[in-house]
């Protein structure tokens, strides 16, 4: 047990070293590709009376209009990073620019340009859906405060009705939010957070606790939002299949970035793609693979790493009749488990 853990630790350290060299290059590359809307530079956060840094020298950039996923196990520092990026927490050191503004010196301007969906729903359950939306609108100074819906300006009423139609809640706009389902609450929060047209929408585990239907419909809605408004979406999630859709992902562990890039880059960097084959005449297959100079592992099936090679040509070269042919293409989850070393 102890040996396994040590082996795993040394494996992860290896990744960390391998990563550190590539990481700075990736940050520079991404920054060059498109104008970043978020730039995080050597961010450090140490909480008061804490002995270690919750966030320890994290750097990444997020290109405008993209979907960015921040992944990591519980306690990795995801919520701390999101809190700093949304100005509710001061960093210990490092620089963070969001939508062109410094999160420490220009916090109010940053808040003007971001929307955030918290882990715990931030709706007032005693109020109706419309009241929750109205309070957001008047809090952000989009419309003057009025004590009732009918007294609000026409533009507001039209905007709300329009958004309610998109969500299919026209008939329930004036019902207390406590009567809404989990999925509807999440949608309402997203609707509300988009009211002030933020450049970046932060979503801190937005689909946790939602059933698969609600999750799917929420993603469809988010996709629509991104297409219509060009909103950058910054996501933290535990559902790794959601991260597959991201334009870039950043995996953190113990406050440090352990992998960063496009999902394909992260997967390629961390998990091997291989071909799994078998034959009735295993001796012949083994000999043939050796003759072809292909590295393999017998488990008892033959695991042949692709190492960037062409599957078709590889199969064509093998003459032994095969009984099993499977390809293994890694998922983000494979990469994640490989890095973090714990199943989720």
């Amino acid at each position, binding site marked *: 047990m102890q040996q396994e853990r040590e082996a795993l630790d040394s494996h992860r350290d290896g990744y960390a070293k391998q990563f550190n060299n590539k990481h700075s290059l990736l940050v520079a590359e991404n920054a060059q590709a498109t104008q970043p809307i978020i730039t995080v530079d050597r961010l450090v956060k140490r909480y008061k009376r804490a002995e270690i840094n919750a966030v320890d020298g994290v750097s990444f950039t997020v290109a*405008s209009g993209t979907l960015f996923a921040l992944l990591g196990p519980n306690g990795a520092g995801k919520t701390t990073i999101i809190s700093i990026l949304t100005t509710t927490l001061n960093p210990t050191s490092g620089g963070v620019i969001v*939508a062109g503004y410094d999160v420490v010196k220009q916090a*109010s*301007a940053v808040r003007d340009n*971001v929307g955030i969906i918290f882990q715990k729903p*931030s709706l007032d359950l*005693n109020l109706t859906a419309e009241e929750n939306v109205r309070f957001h609108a008047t809090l952000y*100074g989009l419309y003057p405060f009025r004590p009732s819906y009918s007294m609000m300006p026409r533009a507001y009423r039209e905007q709300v009705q329009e958004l309610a139609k998109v969500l299919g809640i026209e008939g329930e706009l004036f019902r207390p939010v406590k009567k809404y389902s989990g999925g509807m609450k999440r949608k309402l929060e997203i609707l509300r957070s988009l009211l002030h047209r933020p450049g970046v929408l932060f979503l801190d585990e937005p689909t946790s606790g939602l059933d698969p239907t609600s999750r799917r419909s929420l993603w469809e809605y988010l996709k629509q939002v991104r297409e219509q408004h060009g909103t950058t979406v910054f996501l933290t999630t535990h559902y790794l299949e959601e991260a597959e859709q991201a334009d870039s992902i950043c995996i953190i562990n113990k406050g440090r970035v352990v992998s960063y890039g496009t999902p394909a880059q992260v997967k390629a960097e961390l998990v091997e793609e291989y071909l799994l084959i078998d034959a009735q005449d295993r001796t012949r297959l083994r000999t043939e693979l050796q003759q072809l100079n292909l590295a393999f592992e017998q488990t008892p099936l033959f695991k042949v790493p692709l190492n960037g090679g062409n599957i078709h040509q590889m199969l064509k070269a093998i003459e032994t009749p095969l009984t099993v042919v499977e390809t293994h293409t890694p998922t983000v989850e494979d990469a994640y488990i490989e890095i973090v070393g714990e199943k989720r």
Partner: protein
Amino acid sequence: MIQATRKNMTGPAREVNAILTVAYRDVLKFLRDPARLVQALIFPIIFIGILGGSFQSNIVGEGYNFLTFIFTGVLIQTLFQSTTSGIISLIEDRENDFSQEIFISPISRYSIVFGKILGESLVALVQGIGVIIFGIVFGVPFTLGNALGMIPIAIAACLLGGSFGLILLSSFGSQRAANQILPFLVFPQIFTAGVFNPIHNLPWYLDFLSRISPLRYAVDLARDVFYAGKPEYARVVLAGPLTNLTIMVAMFAVFLFIGTTVFVRSERNK
């Protein structure tokens, strides 16, 4: 592509808008919670009806009506304490529901604090009206003139309670800590401020505690107004209205300044 942010309101107009929004939400929440309303009125009813009635019938010699004396004290204490508790609920709100939304909005933290004090003051004033109605039902001689005179005092009591809540808020890290310590800071004030017990003569240590109780000055100011021109004035009140008001303003300013500064700073420096 960064979407252009709608900026229909800017500067002070936006902050006032936000203050009204924060305040209105508190009032609306209160009106939608009948249990809280009932709870808020139970103690005043017990104090005025039972305590005031029994004191009035059994304790004689001070030369004034105990029911009325207790009524004035309880009215101000209700206003003060309701606002204090309301402000402290910001600790809980910080971690829950809609208030996360408030804290992430681009409005100044000072506007959040002012909106909260305003909202909780309005909530307290609604409760104050309930107390007055019960007082009248129990036979307290409460005239229209008294009511008009009490309005500014009631507002002052709420504001002082709000600023007191703010200084407590900035000292507590969690709702749990607040709930544990709060009774020791609020409950004794009922006695040291003389809400229903005369405090003309006190041993030195109680006198000291009484003088550092903010509620004392609000209660005494209310009695300054309520008993003005009445023969028992000198036996009931402790200090003149100007003295009480000056001390209240000074306490309010200090609490508000320190409380807001510490609260705003602690919000982001965790």
